[in-house]
């Protein structure tokens, strides 16, 4: 129960360019004959029930959206089905559901798993059966790190850039324009939060102080006292938005006036419901992604029209991941081996317009980190962190 391995990650964009949308609006192009439509199966794996369900459901919607467009476009040629694999975002559950997916030979590829812990627990089964994975949100560095035992190689791929990039970027963004910054970092003891701090330090960050708090902490008085004793003027929280909201509130209420910053775990519209605009004003955030609406309003409108709900976190990554599989399917791939080869060789464009391909170990080549700021009760994109 209650596994919290969530690598809540949103990433993406550089600028808006809407390739997929063009395809999306060209529904009518498909040839008329649907007699020989070939059914192909891909899967989505992530938390669809349980505490983390919202993340999985949002991602699944992205996958469904991409498939819907594809099926419409290839009417008569292909009919892509999606198998839903619910791992509740937990390693223990994933170890139970992964064998089934691995042995279901119809599945040619999986979008997912959403969370890193679940990914690591599932991987032995997928590696065994050569089942290609493209995760929209599992960002733990170790999965693709050759120095840490090639956990994911060769089947694992992911769209988001890892915390190896994000750590230093977050530090850079948080200290931007601060003369003589004294940085205090707080992590939430999750693999994500701890890792982000680690890579921040590896990237050369100098810290005035640090604290590590259990992931259900709501009383921050001790941490705040530490921030004050360190006379910090930049506070970075590497954890998730719900806790960030309570921390930021209590920091501001205690009279702290410096910079507040957080990583992509905090970059969620959810934070706006947990603290008032005045408290969140000026909070700096990093993320590899932006919401679909930031790419283009038209894209978001189309998504809402087709799916009946607004796009959620990781929508862009999920669409990208699905699109890679779909482009391979359209090339006639019909085995896992061929799919893996095709994914590895894939060179194309993200829904955001930037180039998309994978390196040898499954990471996206040349991803960037973007900066955001909360202004007037909304999260605003402020450009790539360079």
């Amino acid at each position, binding site marked *: 129960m*209650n596994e919290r391995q969530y690598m809540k990650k949103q990433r993406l964009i550089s600028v808006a360019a809407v390739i997929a949308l063009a395809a999306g609006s060209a529904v009518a192009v498909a040839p008329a004959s649907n007699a020989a439509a070939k059914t192909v199966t891909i899967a989505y794996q992530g938390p669809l029930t*349980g*505490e*983390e*369900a*919202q993340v999985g459901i949002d991602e699944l919607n992205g996958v469904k959206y991409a498939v819907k467009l594809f099926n419409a476009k290839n009417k008569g040629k292909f009919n892509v089905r999606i198998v839903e694999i619910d791992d509740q975002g937990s390693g223990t559950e994933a170890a139970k559901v992964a064998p089934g997916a691995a042995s279901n030979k119809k599945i040619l590829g999986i979008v997912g798993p959403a969370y890193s812990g679940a990914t690591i627990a599932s991987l032995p089964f997928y590696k065994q059966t050569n089942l290609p994975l493209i995760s929209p949100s599992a960002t733990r560095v170790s999965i693709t790190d050759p120095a840490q035992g090639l956990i994911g190689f060769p089947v694992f791929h992911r769209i988001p850039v890892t915390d190896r990039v994000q750590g230093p970027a977050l530090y850079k963004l948080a200290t931007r324009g601060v003369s003589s910054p004294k940085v205090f970092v707080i992590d939430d*003891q999750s693999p994500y939060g701890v890792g982000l701090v680690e890579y921040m330090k590896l990237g050369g960050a100098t810290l005035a102080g640090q*604290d*590590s*708090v*259990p992931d*259900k*902490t*709501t*009383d921050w*008085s*001790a*941490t705040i*006292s*530490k921030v*004050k*004793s360190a006379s910090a003027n930049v506070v970075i929280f590497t954890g998730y938005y*719900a806790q960030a*909201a*309570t921390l930021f*509130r*209590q920091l501001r*209420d*205690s*009279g702290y006036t410096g910079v507040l910053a957080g990583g992509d775990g905090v970059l969620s519209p*959810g934070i*706006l*419901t*947990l*603290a*008032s*605009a005045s408290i969140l004003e000026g909070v700096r955030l990093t993320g590899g992604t932006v919401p679909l609406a930031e790419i283009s309003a038209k894209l978001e409108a189309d998504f809402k029209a087709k799916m009946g709900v607004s796009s959620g976190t990781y929508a862009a990554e999920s669409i990208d991941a699905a699109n890679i599989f779909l482009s391979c399917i359209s090339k006639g791939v019909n085995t896992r081996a061929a799919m893996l080869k095709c994914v590895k060789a894939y060179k194309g464009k993200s829904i955001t317009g930037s180039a998309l391909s994978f390196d040898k170990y499954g990471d996206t080549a040349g991803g960037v980190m973007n900066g955001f700021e909360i202004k007037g*009760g909304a999260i605003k994109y402020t450009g790539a962190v360079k």
Partner: protein
Amino acid sequence: MLSNFQDQFASLTVGGLSLGFIYVLIALGYTMVYGVLRMINFANSEVFMYGTFATIIVIRDLFGFTQQSEPATGFRLVYILFLCLIASMLMSGILSIFLELVAYRRLRNRGSNKLAPLISAIGMSIVLAEFMRILTDSRYVGSPRVMEKKSLGTFFGAELRLDNVIIIVAGLILFVSLSQFVQRTRLGKAIRAVSMNEDAAKLMGVNLNFVVSGTFLVGGLMTGAAGFFYVLKYENTSFNIGFELGIAAFTAAILGGIGNIKGAFYGGIALGLLETYASFFLGTQWKAVTVFIVLVFVLYFRPNGVFGEAITQTRA
């Protein structure tokens, strides 16, 4: 580090005290029930959680506050806070009675083994938490700010913030009222009688079921008040906050001597301070470890907690 600690000591103390009072009130929920039934009311943590939601519902839905609203002031503020307190207390009190009826009464009347009610309570606790999880889509729920967190001045270098002061003062009032209630009222006396000796109390003509319900109600009311204070201080909640707070409060009750109202009071405050100091000194990640090591030491030398057992011993 030491000089820093001295600088921050006063503000840590204020923060620890107000956290401590939240623990005290939840611990009272555990201790009242334990005193009478000699049983860990495991689901009290969820009673607390529902209390926090009651407060948020009043703020958000009854008064229409949003994250963008201006905090209330003056008489309206007092009125709103009072209503929130009543709502949480009622919610938790009623839930607590319901809990006893569903999870415990049958078992109690049959005189089952000691662990059956515990598992039944664990089951109830899962049901209540899951029900709320489904209602809230597993999300955290934020409370809009109803009260500006004004500083009322400083005290030995510590800022006295309005919310902390309210919690400490109101917590103290509630605790004293509870002690008076247990000492003076008929129900309170009956509760004490049952906690001393169930059979004797029966012989004296005490209606046992009524007294047990009354105990759960009183414990629930206190726990509900804690829910209100929690929201006032931290301004959010979620379906899974009960567990951690519940364990902490239960630890507090044990530390002071479970079954003893005075024990819950000192245990709660001691735990609030201990957690805060330990977090500062040793790092927040070792907070829980420190608390348990202290607990082991205390119990090793005083096996019944600092103040021993039984509601009967309350002379606060």
